């Protein structure tokens, strides 16, 4: 029996899906993610890729992998649950914002306008998934080490803008703002996949347009194994899990 040779990586397949979606107006796209927990190896590459991509400081995590052990020796299991922002269709965080700084875009991504956000942190409490953080102006090196490392002040490109946090400049966004996962809009709109997707070691994460029936994300979201977190709240997450 001759072996089957793989011809296309999931990444390239998803890039094709992404490209098709980008040819439609934003209103016709619905960005979504499917995470196959059977393929998640708990490596946290997603978490760290997100930190690096968005240059999130200490205390700000757009993404985490929640881990738990269940069972009794020797019948033990370890479960890994990656948790990005759910990009809800009915996002509780949006409703509580007193200044309308946070809103859901037509393509499903819940964003924060740093220029409007007053840093009240109501949204942090409102999010049932704990997906939002507040930027207190911490740095990895500034205040801890003999010098400030380049990565502490190098830019993130969130929302397509050059955000360079600087020690001591606590009034400059995103310091003093609520912060959250953007599905890497800045990458999407340059035809690239979100950072957590491309680095997923187990190939557990799939991203695409839920409105495109040909996309991988739609095929997987139709799986009988699919669940969403806290469905009972009616938030309608755009992040799906396969058990």
């Amino acid at each position: 029996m001759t072996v089957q040779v793989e011809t296309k990586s999931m990444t390239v397949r998803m890039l094709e899906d992404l490209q098709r979606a980008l040819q439609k107006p934003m209103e016709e796209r619905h960005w979504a993610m499917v995470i196959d927990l059977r393929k998640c190896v708990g490596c946290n590459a997603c978490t760290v890729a997100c930190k690096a991509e968005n240059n999130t400081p200490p205390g700000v995590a757009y993404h985490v992998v929640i881990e738990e052990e269940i069972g009794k020796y020797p019948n033990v299991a370890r479960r890994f649950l990656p948790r990005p922002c759910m990009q809800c269709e009915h996002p509780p965080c949006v409703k509580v914002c007193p200044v309308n700084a946070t809103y859901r875009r037509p393509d499903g991504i819940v964003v924060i306008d740093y220029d409007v956000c007053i840093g009240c942190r109501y949204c942090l409490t409102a999010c049932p998934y704990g997906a939002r953080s507040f930027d207190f102006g911490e740095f990895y090196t500034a205040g801890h080490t003999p010098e400030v490392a380049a990565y502490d002040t190098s830019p993130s490109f969130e929302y397509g803008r050059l955000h360079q946090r600087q020690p001591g400049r606590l009034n400059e966004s995103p310091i003093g703002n609520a912060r959250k996962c953007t599905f890497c809009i800045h990458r999407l709109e340059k035809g690239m996949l979100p950072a957590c997707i491309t680095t997923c070691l187990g190939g557990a994460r799939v991203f695409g347009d839920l409105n495109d029936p040909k996309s991988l994300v739609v095929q997987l979201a139709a799986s009988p194994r699919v669940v969403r977190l806290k469905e009972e709240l009616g938030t309608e997450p755009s992040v799906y899990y396969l058990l």
Partner: protein
Amino acid sequence: MKSLSRKNFLKSAAFLGGTMMFSEVIMPTLSRFQGAQAYSSLAQNDYPFDSPEHIIYSVCLQCHTSCAIKGKIWNGVLVKIEGNPYCPLNLLPHIPYNTPPEQAVLVDAKLCPKGIAGVQSQYDPYRIRKVLKRAGKRGENKWQVIPFDQAIDEIVNGGDLFGEGPVPGLKDLYAVRDPELMKTLAADAKAVVKGEITLEEFKAKHAAHLDKLIDPDMPDLGPRNNQFVFQAGRIQPGRADFSKRWLNNAFGSINWYEHTTICEQSHHIAYREMTNAYVDGKWSGGKTHMKPDLTNAEFVIFFGTGAFEANFGPTPLSEMVTRGLETGRLQFAVVDPRFSKTAAKARWWVPIKPGTDAALALGMIRWILDNQRYDAAYLSNANKAAANANGETTWSGAAWLVKLNDAGQPTTFLRAKEIGLSEEDRFVVSKDGQLLVVDPNDDKNPVYGDLLVEGEANGIRYKSALQLLYDLAKERSIEEWAGECGVEPELIVTLAREFTSHGKRASAELYRGAVQHTNGYYNAQAIITLNVLIGNGDWAGGLAVGGGHWDNNGGKEGQPFPLASLHPNKVSPFGIPVTREKVKYEDSLYFKRDGYPAKRPWYPLTNNVYQEIIPAAAAGYPYPIKALFIHKGTPTFATPAGNPAIEALRDPKVIPLVIGCDIVVGESTMFCDYLFPDTSIWERWGFPHVTPAIQSKTSGVRQPMVDPIVEKVKVFGEEMPISMEAVMLAIAERLGLPGYGKDGFGPGLDFTRPEDYYLKMVANLAFGDKPDGADAVPEADDMEMAVFRKARSHLPPAVFDEARWKKAIGNDESLWRRMVYVLNRGGRFESYEGGYKGEKLAHTFKGLFTIYVENVAKVKHSLTGKPFSGLPIYDAVRLADGTPVQDSEYEFHLITYKEIIGGQSRTVGNYWTQNSIMQENYVLMNRADLARLGLRDGDMVKLVSLTNPEGVWDLGNGQKIPVSGKVKGLEGIRPGTVAVSWHYGHWAYGAGDIIVNGQRIAGDPRRSAGLCPNTVMRIDQSLGNVCLTDPIGGSASFYDTRVKVVRV
């Protein structure tokens, strides 16, 4: 919305030209600008990394997997590291090699969290920029910044460098300088050992040169050059070749080492010994590393390793496994006392008693043989011709006959000439009662042998190798084997049945956990034997040698730069390595003087016995050393039982001169007299070879991505960053070492900067492995040349200078363009489909597996004088003198492991991982043990052992670092075992204060979190100053120590 700038327009226009090809080759519908520009939702988008001019591809070294990486560079700063999509380690399958860079740029490939966090090692605020000379006692961490040239002068010339008395310089150790003299001394020393000439004759002949020898009464120790030792930790092809040329073949010392025995050396030695070919009366040429083909495997047993945490390594292996799980193709078992992340996905977790892997394997072997579940047709193939006739590319010595001594013990293979069957040196099998001659390498005349035979011929008793294995396995029942390894007998049977239920698509994989024991070699041999029993070598889904790599050293005919021979006046060092490796004790003058037992072990079957270097120097056996060069490694911290090594390094009388190069002042480099800053892995060159788990031929090229942050200096009149290479070139310049400077490679080919060497390697890769150049990569076109230059516009001439680089390869424009093609992709990578061929792998071993290892059975233990076993015996944990180790009053068995975020000593500055994800590590134990000891999660505990009853790192200056941390209860660990991850517990490497030029540089307390357990690991009392060690494979024992867990 930003208007379409001219630059962007040009980019779009240029891109259109390439769209067609791109579409056809990889991404049928992908064309980036249309969509993005038509319906962009953002008012502006400054994200720059969709353009190849901000990208340089290179190779990671946060761990040894050597994944290819894609550096995203903004204003000269490395801001993000991704996986390189051209490389098979990072994408399954990877993109075609001919994809143009401006199209590949859209594809970020996979990379593990350690690799991504490399940005934080690159810009670690504790990186050293300038040369440090100690301003206090050794290890006091008081330093003075001095000019590079002053440091080189002092190291070369010696003198009273520290006000502590005279220190020999390297010029004093550079004793034998003439290659001819070296050769003559080597030959005559050998003749003395062999008794062909007397010592007196030797002395008379070489009277003028006796002062150049370490000991004129023991000329086989070699010249005093050998008293300069290079001890590298993590070093790879490229730097390894560069430094060997310098130390071995220019300076003339034999003592070049890397760290392999503190990693997994016994596993390599077992593979090599079991795959050696028999040619001209010698066993040689074995493969040191084989891996399962996880892309096609149906069943795999991971012994002491896994796919998702360490090993070789999570980035390539994870998806191979998860795809197998998704489709139902793959099931696997994990043999590990700890419930690893890999175990979390396994069908079977086997929480074995540490170090008893051979017992488990022998239990399986017993069941497989009892039930005839082995591949009898495969094993009967006694030579190459038989294998080929049966559609196999590998064969085995299972049917070969082994002689028994009077005690019935196996000795060596029966030779046909011993029973009058042949004049030649041939082996023998028994077939249907007839004894047949076997030439293992004969590809014309098939010979088949019966598998389970014994008998007598010419008064010589014999058994087949498989019969010997069966007899060994039958020494215990399956229940008894199960009792030894602490595994249920039913589970052993299940594993054996499953293992033999998938034809060739099963394999037994092993790594560190099974072999870092005193019985590590035998454990490995037992596990590898399982593979031989099903004959899985070279089969898709079976055991693979991997795709290999192109020859960067130019060793293939026709390659442009054969580096080994481009070395005028090259010397060949000789003598006994300070670790007494690669040489039999019996072949030394020490043996003639001392007999058995040797004062310290000799390691004829292995090399790079890292843990023994400093202890041997301290013991002065086989001789003291005068100068030590520590490179990217930490022999006190990363080695089990490091306290004696700390004590030795602290004392300048033990090793008078210690120099190092490191990127941060580490736990070992703090003991240097002179410490040079090094370039980081993101700033320098390298040519790593990759794991056999990868079936496509792969040659990654590590190249400078950013301007090194270290000081730049002049060597041979050229400006370069201080680095290992700069130090070696500067010393070569001062000493006039052969093979450096003007015409260093030969007439017209100077060697005055690192690129003179490394670019020749790139040229060799670009040219390929075929003599006629048919294997060369294409030339980069003008557009690619432009991308190449733009991507390096932030690099100063000391790092990138196109004209100078071209000069290094002889100004060959065509070759240069091919090299650019390679550098624009971060290396050379064969297509994914190139790795497979029908039911087989495309890159194959095509050789012999032996299950009885004569080459090992012929060697005697240098202390006991008893021969090693040719069979994979289940052996006790022993001291060097053979005494079994018990320590039963210490109730816990200590093991270590690595979280995926951690890599030994050098990832502690990666705050994204070792602080944000996990602030510290823990003493992990089973909840039942926790409750029994009355401990609760988070209680502080200390580990103590028989040889470290205080449970401390003893820095010798009154400072003691307790081996203590928080305890944490788990269900996923074998009761009676404690596990500690190995990448926390620092006191140096930015964790503690140091004084430079009288000023205190405060350490970061976050970096001292957690504990490093290595120093409580057991000292071998029969030697006094080194850890337990496998006498065959040389592996340092990390997992044979019993400890008490004490509340503090």
